[in-house]
């Protein structure tokens, strides 16, 4: 029996190889097509953004390469949508939220993972329940609470409500469970306070998860538009518009082709920071096995 099988194997080896190559080629072609379909819109946007304002596109023609090339639209959009202002707000919002929530997440995550206190299970359960409820249900209530605190015309209004990031807490907690107790006990014996322990021992040991959390939060906050829009468009504080809001409210301001060119330029501009983040921190973004495990 075994001889027959091995002979058969020898005979089919060549055809197997051919199959293998065929399979690889077809797969790569398919994946390339998907990648191109995903890239195409952005390429078209880029082409659009570099048309000069008085360029009239021919009807029924898709431009795949630069025509009437100019960078003027980028300056126009920065001026007219006041993107420099929005950039400042966006940076303050994103960095402020990421840093503050990181502090909260580290402390709470550490306490839940490493201190065995009465009520730990209850606190964890309550926090976990948050993940079940879509934040959108709370939109109007959160909006009213920010008005109650008087922070609705303030950058704090979009930073403070989400600071206790439950998803982040459990992400960090799960990772911190792997920090060995013996190290922490040794620190105890040396008379180290809890906060000092977190800063000097736990943080250096959880750098990977901190990076993952910071990057995910940064990108998520950068792209956030719903709550800031509700808060600022209803209170009329358009000097506090983030980049997303500045671009979103930009829709009806111009007419004709120049409008679409300028808008495309703005869209490219607000996407570039995310793409740079992605290229630099790819390793952390694509290594999401820890996140998948959590959910």
């Amino acid at each position, binding site marked *: 029996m075994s001889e027959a099988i091995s002979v058969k194997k020898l005979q089919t080896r060549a055809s197997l190889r051919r199959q293998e190559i065929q399979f690889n080629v077809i797969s790569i072609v398919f*994946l390339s097509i998907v990648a191109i379909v995903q890239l195409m819109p952005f390429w078209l946007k880029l082409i659009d953004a570099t048309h000069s304002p008085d360029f009239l*596109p021919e009807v029924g023609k898709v431009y795949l390469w630069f025509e009437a090339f100019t960078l003027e639209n980028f300056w126009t959009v920065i001026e007219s949508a006041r993107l420099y202002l929005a950039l400042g707000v966006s940076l303050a919002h994103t960095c402020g939220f990421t840093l503050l929530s990181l502090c*909260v997440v580290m402390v*709470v995550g550490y306490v839940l993972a490493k*201190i065995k206190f009465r009520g730990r299970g209850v606190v964890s359960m309550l926090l976990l329940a948050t993940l079940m409820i879509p934040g959108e249900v*709370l*939109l109007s209530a959160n909006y009213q*609470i920010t008005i109650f605190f008087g922070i609705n015309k303030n950058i704090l209004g979009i930073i403070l409500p989400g600071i206790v990031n439950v998803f982040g807490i459990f992400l960090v907690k799960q990772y911190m469970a792997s920090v060995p107790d013996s190290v922490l006990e040794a620190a105890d014996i040396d008379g180290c306070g*809890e906060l000092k322990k977190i800063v000097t021992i736990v943080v250096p040991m959880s750098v990977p998860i901190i990076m993952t959390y910071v990057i995910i939060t940064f990108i998520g906050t950068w792209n956030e538009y719903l709550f800031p829009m509700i808060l600022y468009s209803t209170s009329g504080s358009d000097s506090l518009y983030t980049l997303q809001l500045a671009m979103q409210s930009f829709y009806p301001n111009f007419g004709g082709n120049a409008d679409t060119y300028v808008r495309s330029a703005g869209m490219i501009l607000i996407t570039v920071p*995310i793409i740079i983040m992605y290229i630099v921190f790819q390793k952390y973004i694509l290594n999401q096995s820890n996140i998948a495990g959590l959910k």
Partner: protein
Amino acid sequence: MQNNESLEREDLAAENASAEPIGAAPVRGAEGKPKKKPFRQRYKKEILAYSLIGIPLIWWCVFFVVALLWAFATSFTDMRGGYGFDFVHNISFDNYINIFTVGSSQAEAFWNGMKVTVIWTAVMMVGNNLMGILCAFLIKAIRRGGKLFLALLFWPSLVSAVVGADITSTLFQSDNTGVVNQLIIACGGSPVAWFEDPNTAIWALMVVPFFFGFCQKMLIYYSTLVSIPETYEEAASLETSSRFRIFLRVIFPLMKNALVLNTLLSIIDGFKILGPMQLVTDGGPANSTQSVMLLIYKSVFNAPARIGQGCAYAFVLFLFILIVSVFQKLLAGKEESNIE
């Protein structure tokens, strides 16, 4: 301090952490009767823990628990403009009754929204998961360039909803300047008014979120695939040379957890879809793209504000999400126990 060695290790660590190690001596004497320990000693860990997480917990209570209760209370009122109970004239179940009364305008709007939301969720769930599994499988299977393709295919999921909506409106512009219409013309068809026709609007809206949204699923499937030991596949390849059969019979059953997780995520994300509709069509034409979330958003924040009604919609929607996720959890738990 040497005497302390008789204590449990944990106690030792805890007591040394306190600012006054000499104070440990009388406690040691009362070791057998912990009730005599002073309060501060007995609840040391609790005091420590709650002093650290106290402020975050209060914060969470304000922006989550209070907000939830507030929204729930609001859903029983006829709160319209203004914010606060000063504006409330009537407290009743009317908002909920309206949703389930056949023929009322609220019921019509809500169930129309549910229809749009369910169509959206179903298409996205099936499409994204199939595409995600396929791409993850191919990326894992090809000899070279897997990492490159993973990186290339994933990045669109990081693009913001505003940019996605802008791309949708560029691609599907109704006149012949839209890219899709130009392609149709090039193929000899006649241009379609995508966002003016109630039948095509929702499908046109779906295309970009579909292509930008399956990446997240793909990544989860990919990390699951990578974590499956190679040996299974090698063992199976002795039996058959068809990769797809190996995948279907051996690998796919091992991915059940990822599948359940991704389905759940798709459903939760789908039920709260709002971005594309709000940014591109604003619910039109003829409410054919008005999802429940957009309806809620409009009733709370648009001009004739009906905050109470909006909150009632939100809680009915939340109930649906809850039922689906509990059902899903039960299903997942059952299957897991079956496998083991």
